[in-house]
């Protein structure tokens, strides 16, 4: 691109439009449709004058994208501005208002830099009013990125918006945020979207706005007031038992949550994070949510509390949230004793046995009594003792002090499971998963090698 004015290697829509603005002569105002065609024609002219051969494909793509975005925005802006203005002013407005939606990282536009400083200083206020206004700006960046995978779940979007907050506030970005390559470039391009002025209310796609922002702001206000006022824990289990289905995951997650929060600095972030944890509990009841929560809690620690609260995915009941944060949030700070004091020794033993007990109930295919389950545990215990004794005898018979697989094979043979017809390899193949099979059955590989070596 020898004659491109800007030094970027690949022309984006924005640079194309800029070039159009710089070079295009003023045309007489026309009707809406023809104005759009004029824009497209001018873009086409500039691109075709520059690009030949290999570049045409990319420029065609970008031109179509530009035309699409121009068309969309022109449709919005045309009615307001067409009476007085030329395509030049149209394009200027487009440049001002169009979100940076390309995946590639363009150079930050010079025009928007002074705005960025203004907006960032604006954002640094922690007042309620600024929060409410920042909300509509947050929505379009999260919804307008093509780099964002379309199947991104709400938690990913939550973390991304949290990341945006960090970027704005200059916090260290090296926190454990599972940002993959797509979203990293997306957030980098998102950096520029933050600098767009407050106009994008009109540009924002209404269909994608899922949450009513006004209601959230009120909740945040009440929440913050309550957080600052209340320091005494009201009865949390009362509110938690209301949600009986999620009581057990909550109780499980409580021990990790306070431990994680003690590492945190701020109290309020702790409270809101625990609130997050409980409300995410509501969302993910029944799912194995604890690993997710464990990864998301460090991220939540860093973000602004109000932002993360606002960015919550819409829970199954929005009404849950206003009632919930008031009661259990201040209650979780004082650590409560959860586990029983003296831990019996058999507990790890029984939890290990429970693996086999579950297998028993699976194979039985019939419902069982609780006493029957305990009976199975005792039988298994007895079986283990017999097993160990036998293995000891076998190893001693062979003059060894280590129990080897041959002793095990002898044991199975004496049990009648391994016969001359049914070898042990058959049993291994039938009952064990492939990873263990590979370890147990020697297999010949290329290069005259056998694994596992006998």
């Amino acid at each position, binding site marked *: 691109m020898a004659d491109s004015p800007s030094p970027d290697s690949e022309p984006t829509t924005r640079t194309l439009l800029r070039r159009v603005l710089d070079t295009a002569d003023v045309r007489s105002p026309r009707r809406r449709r023809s104005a759009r065609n004029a824009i497209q024609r001018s873009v086409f002219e500039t691109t075709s004058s520059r690009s030949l051969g290999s570049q045409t494909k990319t420029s065609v793509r970008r031109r179509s994208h530009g035309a699409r975005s121009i068309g969309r925005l022109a449709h919005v802006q045309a009615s307001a501005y067409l009476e007085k203005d030329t395509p030049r002013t149209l394009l200027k407005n487009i440049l001002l208002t169009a979100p940076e939606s390309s995946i590639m990282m363009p150079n930050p536009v010079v025009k928007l830099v002074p705005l960025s400083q203004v907006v960032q200083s604006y954002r640094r206020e922690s007042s309620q009013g600024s929060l409410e206004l920042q909300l509509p700006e947050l929505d379009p960046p999260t919804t307008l990125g093509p780099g964002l995978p379309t199947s991104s779940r709400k938690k990913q979007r939550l973390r991304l918006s949290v990341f945006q907050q960090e970027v704005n506030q200059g916090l260290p970005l090296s926190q454990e945020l599972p940002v993959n390559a797509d979203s990293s470039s997306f957030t980098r391009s998102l950096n520029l979207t933050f600098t767009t002025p407050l106009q994008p209310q009109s540009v924002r796609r209404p269909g994608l706005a899922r949450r009513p922002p006004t209601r959230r702001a009120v909740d945040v206000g009440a929440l913050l007031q309550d957080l600052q006022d209340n320091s005494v824990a009201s009865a949390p289990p009362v509110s938690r038992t209301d949600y009986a289905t999620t009581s057990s995951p909550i109780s499980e997650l409580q021990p990790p949550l306070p431990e994680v929060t003690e590492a945190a600095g701020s109290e309020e972030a702790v409270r809101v994070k625990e609130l997050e944890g409980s409300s995410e509990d509501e969302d993910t009841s029944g799912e194995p949510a604890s690993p997710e929560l464990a990864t998301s809690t460090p991220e939540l620690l860093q973000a602004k509390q109000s932002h993360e609260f606002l960015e919550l995915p819409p829970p199954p009941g929005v009404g849950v949230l206003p009632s919930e944060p008031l009661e259990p949030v201040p209650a979780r700070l004082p650590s409560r004793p959860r586990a029983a004091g003296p831990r019996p020794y058999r507990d790890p033993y029984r939890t290990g046995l429970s693996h086999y007990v579950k297998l028993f109930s699976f194979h039985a295919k019939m*419902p069982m009594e609780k006493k029957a389950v305990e009976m199975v545990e005792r039988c298994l215990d007895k079986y283990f003792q017999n097993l160990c004794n036998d293995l*000891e005898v076998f190893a001693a018979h062979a003059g060894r002090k280590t129990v080897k697989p041959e002793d095990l094979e002898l044991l199975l043979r004496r049990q009648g499971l391994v016969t001359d017809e049914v070898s042990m390899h058959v049993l291994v193949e039938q009952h064990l998963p492939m990873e263990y099979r590979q370890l147990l059955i020697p297999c010949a590989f290329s290069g005259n090698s056998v694994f596992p070596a006998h």
Partner: protein
Amino acid sequence: MARSATVSQRTKIKRTAPRGFLRRVFKRYKPHLRLEARGDLLVHLSCLLFIRRLAEESRTNAYENKCSIINKDHVVDAAKVILKKSRG
């Protein structure tokens, strides 16, 4: 592996062996002995087979008594038989 392959029930069957648990149990009962690396997998295999046989036997007992629930007595009777069988 016909039956275990189709987990139509809501329970998830974990196929991994609790190898650490098996080693600890062995150490608890026989601290002077050592268990080899692949030995605990075979111990797991023998436990699986034991549990399978026990479940079959108790199910049979429950059918014979025409109960739809496996009782403690069924399990006890089954255990007597199967433990005797797997004495080695």
